[in-house]
């Protein structure tokens, strides 16, 4: 079979440029560390990587949301711990006030102390978070939860529960309305304290024992509702820790999947690079040898 001399050169040069292109691509892959340089290299993997990247981004956002939730719940818990110990102090004072040896004057001192406790409790109920939002006002987070009145305190917030998306299918309430914490079950802790102060400021002991018994029972019930809220806050904080663990595991899986889809196998790529170099060199050498063969050399 005869061969066209021109075509011989063209074929060789096409072949070499083809080899150079492949070499170039391998180099680009090695330089970027990416197996997929454009969606066309592996459309399925490229698209899947986009979807996984979104899942990973959402997953890490849930982690951020959980941090917010933890911080808010932590402040609620700290505040309610203060409220609990305050209520226990009040109960101690109620017991002490029942002592028959006390005179009106001494009960008056106790009333003054309890009034201080009332102010302290109002302060705790009107606590704000780091951003200045009132913790116990429901959705009215710019409004103090309670204002004091002659008979106790009025709740100014609403029943809104601020929820955070802490996982794909879990929205967690991070706030409790002040009315639930301090005024639930027909008991208003502020009214109880106000009544108590008034009782102890009343001279004489008529109705004192009965009044103190009522106050004690009311404080017990108020303490119960605070402890109930604290229990649920504690459970939420535990759940957040568990969700954090799951989230981290998931993040690791996403990273692994992304790496498998996109990342270059360096060993394979470098082997390929060497192979391609050898082939190109061989093609170049053989081209020089064969192209120099010509009958004209002997004429």
């Amino acid at each position: 079979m005869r061969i066209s001399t021109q075509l011989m050169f063209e074929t060789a040069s096409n072949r070499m440029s083809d080899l150079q292109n492949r070499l170039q691509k391998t180099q680009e892959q090695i330089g970027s560390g990416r197996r997929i340089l454009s969606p066309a290299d592996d459309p399925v993997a490229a698209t899947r990587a986009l979807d996984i990247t979104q899942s990973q981004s959402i997953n890490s956002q849930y982690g951020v949301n959980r941090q917010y939730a933890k911080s808010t719940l932590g402040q609620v818990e700290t505040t309610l711990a203060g409220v609990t110990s305050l209520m226990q102090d009040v109960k101690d004072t109620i017991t002490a006030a029942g002592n028959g040896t006390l005179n009106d004057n001494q009960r008056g001192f106790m009333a003054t102390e309890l009034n201080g406790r009332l102010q302290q409790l109002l302060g705790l109920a009107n606590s704000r978070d780091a951003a200045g939002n009132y913790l116990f006002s429901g959705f009215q987070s710019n409004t103090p939860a309670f204002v004091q009145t002659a008979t106790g305190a009025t709740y100014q917030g609403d029943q809104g529960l601020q929820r955070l998306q802490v996982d794909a299918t879990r929205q967690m309430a991070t706030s409790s309305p002040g009315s639930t914490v301090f005024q639930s079950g027909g008991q208003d802790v502020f009214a109880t304290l106000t009544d108590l102060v008034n009782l102890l400021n009343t001279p004489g002991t008529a109705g004192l024992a009965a009044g103190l018994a009522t106050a004690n029972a009311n404080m017990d019930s108020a303490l119960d509702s605070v402890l109930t809220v604290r229990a649920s806050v504690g459970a939420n904080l535990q759940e957040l820790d568990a969700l954090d663990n799951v989230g981290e595991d998931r993040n690791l899986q996403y990273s692994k999947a992304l790496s498998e889809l996109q990342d270059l196998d360096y060993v394979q790529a470098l082997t390929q690079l060497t192979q391609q170099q050898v082939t190109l060199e061989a093609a170049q050498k053989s081209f020089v040898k064969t192209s120099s063969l010509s009958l004209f050399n002997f004429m």
Partner: protein
Amino acid sequence: MATSILSVGQSALAAAQVGINTTGHNIANAATPGYNRQVIVQGAAQAQNFGFGFLGQGVDVSTIKRVYNEFLGNQVQSAQTTKSGLDSHYAQIRQINNLLADPTAGLSPALQEFFTGLQDVASNPTSIPARQSALSSAESLASRFQSMAGRLDEIGRSLNGQIQSSVADINTYGAQIAQLNDAIGKAQRASGQPPNDLLDQRDQLLMELNKHIKVTVVAQGSDYNVFIGNGQPLVVGVSTYTLTNVASATNPEKLEVAYRASNGSLVPLAESALSGGQLGGLLDFRSQSLEPAQNALGRVAIGLASSFNAQHQLGFDLGGAAGGAFFTTATPVVGENSNNTGSAALTASISNVNALTTSDYRLQFDGTNYTVTRLSDNTPTTFAAFPQTIDGVTLNLTAGAAAGDSFLIRPTVNGASGFGVAITDPAKIAAAAQTGAVGDNSNALLLGALQTANTLGNGTVSYQGAYSQFVSQVGNKTRELEVTSSAAGKLLTEATMSLQNESGVNLDEEAANLLRYQQAYQAAGKVMQIASELFDVLLSIGR
């Protein structure tokens, strides 16, 4: 007798000279594109009867022919036009593919940052910095949409320029082929011999023409008649019919290829008729890759803007006012056919983003009924009255349509470029579900949930999913073209090899021929020398 010997020697000498000349011509043109090697055809001259028998009168060169196999030539032409078409489509779509190459620069990161910002608002509904940062990430999402749309528009505009220059090239080649038809006809009539080099040039021009568009050739005498598409003539004998460009009747920004009819009017050629070659590849790219890409990106933008706005408008902002539109959205583009004779005007609006497709639509009126055709799969819907909703687009036509009127509706083409952020005041983000509740984040949570909700494609894909579909579409098409173009390249190489192995110049062969004709020339000289010596013998007798 001696004179006869001299003339035999001379004919041999002349034949050897022609041989050396032809060999030299072959060597000279070994690297000329489209050159086919030439060989001399020689035969014994008419013998003369001298009674004792026929005495040979030397050699005659009857013709010089080019070695050309028309069948193989046609194969190369056809492989070339396929390859050029795929190459030009591939070169164009690679631009879109490269636009999407870097996963950290595409739409996905901007989309994710936007929703991250929104989640931060949900966590801190009263925080102005959190709201401001959500608004900023919305702005950067909008600019990402716009810059991608801008790049696609730019590709579309440069496409128009390339179509024009391709059409100009086709006309030039057509004119040159017509000139060669003329020159070849004249040369052949004058000499009765084939003008080999002119024939090569014409075949080479045909090859160049095939690189631009697929043509069919009908040989008539010495002429090539060249046709494109469904028999639209480009060259007939020595006359040419030029192609030109016209703006599409329904989309002035889109150039179409047209020819001038005998009555002088410009008739656009159907794209299906213009297959193969660079021009066919460009048109394929526009209809199969660019327009679907613009529509797909636009659908993500419109889908996001509309469904997000709908939820946003259910909420209340920091000041307690009802939420407004968060994003601005593009409206469908309606192209009224410039040849419409009626006075009806069409309006189109998007009524359900969930049902939107990435296709364009054509509305046609036949005098009684209206037909809307979805162009991606040619599904028709026929009805008699407006308004009419098809795939989430509500169409309304005023009275006055004439039979034959048509409109082109492109629902999502401007989606990405028309995507913007409508609010500037961070307090206007409607995070609350009830009025006057500043700490309420319920609506922000619902807005955040839209990120993974399947709001598009009739409830089958999320925003990210729709974008992934777009990337996958481009990636797959690019890959497909890469593979088919490389396969077409192999086919072309095979065909070229077969043709060139027969017609191409082999320098070793020519070197051998050179030696052969050189020896023939020397031998012929010897014959003439002997004839001359014989003549000297005669002369010396009379001395």
